[in-house]
């Protein structure tokens, strides 16, 4: 039986918002969240009843985020000083700005793999389907992402994260 879409939003809304924040930064996360759930609601009647709703939503969020990332690359932010590496991540809470800077500085694929594995809790096989490429490549992208985060933000560990 297909549950009311409201329950899908209630169950996965928070996770999708965090995924969007990690992939896009705080500034664009809310619009990506809205686009994701609107597209999901449109397609929802055709989603198989036994589908993994979270993986499905992350897949949609991934596509929406790619649109935003592409638009950003076409249209660089109007800043006076060109940053060393592209980052559009805002600072979500006081004190942890450095980690967000470090997350924002990761290459797209590493940041996506980190978000989908450590935030959404998806298995690497699912992530490979979203990113394209092999399961090993997805695992490697997440591992490289975490390694880079540790390098740039020494406090980071992955203790308690899904394996």
């Amino acid at each position, binding site marked *: *039986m*297909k*549950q*009311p*879409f*409201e*329950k899908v*939003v209630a169950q996965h*809304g*928070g*996770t999708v*918002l*965090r995924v969007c*924040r*990690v992939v896009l930064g*705080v500034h664009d996360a*809310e619009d990506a*969240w*809205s686009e994701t*759930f*609107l597209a999901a*609601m*449109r397609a*929802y*009647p055709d989603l198989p009843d036994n589908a993994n709703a979270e993986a499905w939503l992350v897949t949609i969020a991934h596509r929406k985020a790619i649109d935003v990332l592409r638009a950003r690359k076409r249209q660089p932010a109007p800043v006076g000083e060109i940053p060393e590496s592209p980052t559009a991540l805002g600072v*979500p*809470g006081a004190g*942890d700005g450095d*980690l967000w800077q470090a997350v924002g500085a990761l290459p797209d694929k590493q940041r996506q793999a*980190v978000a989908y594995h*450590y*935030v*959404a*809790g998806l298995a690497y096989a699912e992530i490979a389907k979203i990113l394209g490429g092999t399961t090993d490549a997805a695992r490697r992208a997440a591992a490289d992402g*975490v390694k880079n*985060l540790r390098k740039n*933000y020494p*406090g*980071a*560990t*992955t*203790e*308690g*994260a899904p394996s």
Partner: protein
Amino acid sequence: MNISPDYFASPSDPDTLPRLRGRLGLAAEAEGLLDVAYTTIDSPVGTLLLAATPKGLVRVAYDVEDHDRVLDTLSQRLSPRVLRAPKRLDAAARELDEYFSRQRRAFDLPLDLSLSKWFRQLVQQRLPEIGYGQTRTYGQVAELVGNPKAVRAVGTACATNPLPVVVPCHRVLRADGTPGGYVGGPGAKKALLRLEAAA
């Protein structure tokens, strides 16, 4: 510092998500995706769930019906595109408020009776003809719909009324004058009859 889901939570989440969900309801309505909108209101007969399709009010449900189950049924029978989106229910909520404060005697709302079929729908269409503060017996309603022998079927039609309060099945009583069954429980039926009698 763990890289865990919680880490990426933000202190603003408790405010952000309700705001985004509200925005989703408005956008879904604008895009024509909101097949079933619902909200809940407080009333003297408990919390009522109100649901509407683009055609009109499709469901009023009492607490005792279990709102989660009611939503599951709407998802199955109408469309799974169900969202809590109070705006579409503004007029219904206001008219119910007026009714419960004795400022309204009839409802003026577009209704969607698609949850009922055939004879049941026919009965439910005719029930608003029983005026405020009046009552009829199941047998009288059977006569009203032109099928005097269908007393039990009228009882079933009342028991399965998807729009209690608004479609006044509470005004249909047993021949001996006792209230008979009610989807919101006998207490709710008596409360509505008392409310209307006192006006």
